[in-house]
């Protein structure tokens, strides 16, 4: 797959993910745990992120976005598939090698506060990574580097001696970004980097991310559930549903020509701050909720909620991500969709119909472990 970098030259992929699977075992057993099933959080994802570009991942809560991001960074060991980073296969890397590889791939988290150790001040947060990788000969050198990074993310110098809880949400997220940046990485996985922030702060952070990318030629994988945000910062958008990509397209195409029914529904659900648009537009309301990844529907995962679902194929054949050609519709070579009926839907041959919501039975994911005692037992 070739795509053009911002300056128009073809970019080689920095990250190649092939058939990535992350299955969390569900255990049960009397004496020894037996695996009785799997939560298929990520179930066969292929994607490729070109150098210097932004890949955006959207999807409903629980569809496996974060897991994908973590598996890509080997923070969660993948069950299957491969992750190639700059030509290196990560899944087979020895722990020590992987650790030093981490310098080049970093992560930004959703909740800036909880991802910062409340007992570390900003300086030690930023220096920790440097120390772990032996960057900078001495403390002075490291401090210099930290100071530069601080400037880059727009934090004042006095921030160094402060603790995370003393900052506002936006500033905290800047600290999180600085922590990733200070190592000089090539790839940054940003898991919902702005979801916890106020709109104004969100915009600041988005702008910051964009600026940094321009300056440092960073490659991003941005995960978010807000389609508008993802589309805004991404070059390519992947739409995820229940552990798999259902559509992947350049960010302009995805708005202009959404092909997958789920993408369409998602698109129509995003509120637009414009009364005229809101009043006019027609909503595709999805019935029910995301099915459980432990027990995903057979065939097309979306068919239980799909207004275009057909009696044939949908329920028994799992669609693959493919390119389609439809007359009268400009779809680029890099626009792929996983739907059996994408052509017919695009042309309007198939009409949406009513869907009855199915029951989704939610269970507490991890049974609460019985609380440890905290009271002293008495001798007497």
């Amino acid at each position, binding site marked *: 797959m070739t795509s053009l970098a911002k300056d128009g030259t073809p970019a080689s992929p920095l990250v190649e993910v092939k058939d990535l699977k992350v299955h969390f075992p569900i255990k049960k*057993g*009397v004496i020894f745990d037996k695996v009785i099933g799997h939560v298929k959080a990520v179930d066969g994802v292929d994607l490729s992120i070109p150098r210097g570009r932004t890949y955006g991942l959207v999807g409903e809560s629980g569809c496996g976005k974060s897991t994908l991001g973590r598996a890509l960074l080997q923070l969660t060991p993948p069950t299957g598939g491969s992750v190639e980073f700059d030509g290196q296969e990560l899944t087979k890397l020895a722990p020590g090698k992987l650790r030093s590889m981490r310098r080049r791939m970093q992560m930004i988290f959703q909740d800036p506060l909880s991802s910062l150790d409340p007992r570390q001040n900003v300086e030690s947060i930023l220096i920790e990574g440097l120390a772990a990788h032996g960057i900078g000969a001495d403390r002075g050198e490291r401090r210099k580097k930290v100071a530069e990074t601080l400037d880059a993310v727009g934090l004042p110098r006095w921030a160094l001696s402060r603790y995370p809880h003393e900052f506002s949400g936006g500033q905290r997220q800047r600290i999180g970004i600085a922590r990733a940046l200070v190592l000089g990485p090539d790839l940054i996985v940003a898991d919902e980097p702005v979801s916890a922030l106020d709109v104004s702060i969100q915009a600041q952070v988005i702008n910051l991310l964009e600026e940094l990318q321009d300056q440092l030629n960073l490659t991003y994988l941005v995960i978010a559930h807000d389609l508008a945000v993802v589309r805004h910062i991404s070059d390519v958008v992947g739409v995820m549903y229940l552990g798999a990509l259902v559509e992947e397209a350049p960010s302009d195409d995805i708005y202009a020509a959404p092909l997958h029914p789920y993408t369409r529904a998602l698109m129509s659900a995003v509120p637009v701050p414009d009364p005229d648009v809101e009043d006019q537009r027609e909503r595709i309301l999805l019935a029910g909720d995301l099915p459980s990844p432990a027990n995903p529907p057979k065939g097309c995962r979306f068919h239980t909620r799909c207004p275009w679902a057909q009696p044939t194929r949908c329920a028994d054949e799992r669609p693959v991500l493919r390119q389609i050609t439809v007359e009268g519709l400009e779809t680029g070579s890099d626009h792929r969709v996983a739907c059996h009926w994408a052509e017919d839907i695009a042309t309007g041959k198939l009409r949406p119909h009513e869907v009855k919501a199915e029951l989704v039975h939610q269970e*507490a994911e991890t*049974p*609460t472990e*019985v*609380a440890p*005692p905290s*009271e002293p037992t008495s001798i*007497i």
Partner: protein
Amino acid sequence: MFRFIVRRLLQLIPTLFGLSLLLFVWLHRLPGGPETAILGERSTPELRARIREEMGLDQPIWVQYGRFMKRVLSGDLGTSIGTKRPVTTEFLERFPGTVELTITALIIAVGIGIPLGYIAARRRGTWIDQLSVGGALLGICIPVFFLGYIVKEVLAVNFGWFPTTGRQDVTIDATRVTGFFVLDGLLTREWDAAADAIMHLILPGIVLASIPLASIVRITRASVLEVVQEDYVRTAEAKGLTEQTVRSRHILRNAMLPVATTIGLLTGSLLSGAVLTETVFAFSGIGAFIVEAIDRRDYPVLMGFIMIVAVIYVLVNLLVDLSYSLIDPRVRVR
């Protein structure tokens, strides 16, 4: 659920095994053995040596342990060196007393502790709060022998409301069925015997309750404090529910979870920890008997009792964990 129970019971096996080994070695390492205890002031080296030899105490410890385990595995916990009665009999005779006492103490502690903790939390920061917490603390700070003395002096000697010792008036000719005197009284319809047994439980119950009381108050208070600022309490208020409904259904029911664990833990320690209370009230229970057994280096009793107490402790906590899943549907025991 069933799996959970089986699993926990199976987990008990290695724990018990470890405990028995540890305990055995530990006990046998204590200076002085049953022979000194038996002989007292009149011991001579020759006599001690003979007893040790006859009891096999001069053999290597692992041989002794092997013998012990063999017997235990065949279902025999041996007999007490001190009383020469089977350990199981001793246990069955003394355990009911301790259970009755523990239950009484828990009823008192919970009955006082939870309301007190609740009030303290709702009036957080006021003098009522400090008073409840401090008052509950008082109980644990006054040593049992002193508290027992005061309680007896006032409620028994002064007012004559309660008896001070034993589990039942010795002049009552009660029929024994289960060994739980109150229960026996009810079963045999000897009402006076049952009433008398209850009266005998109250003072030691109060004294024993003083130990868990502080914990219960503290946990209840902390737990209620946490729950009252949960969103669902606000929702309940927004629904216009009456104060009682909000309190009982929405606050207390949720606040009870940690309290339940604490009570479970406390039950465990009360079962084996009522030593002083049992002594001070001449109450026939296992706590006092264990202490006697320690003094006598009564190895079979110590091994047997502690193993049984450990099992009961685990069972009680198993029950608490199960009751957890009853109070809190989110908790699936595993």
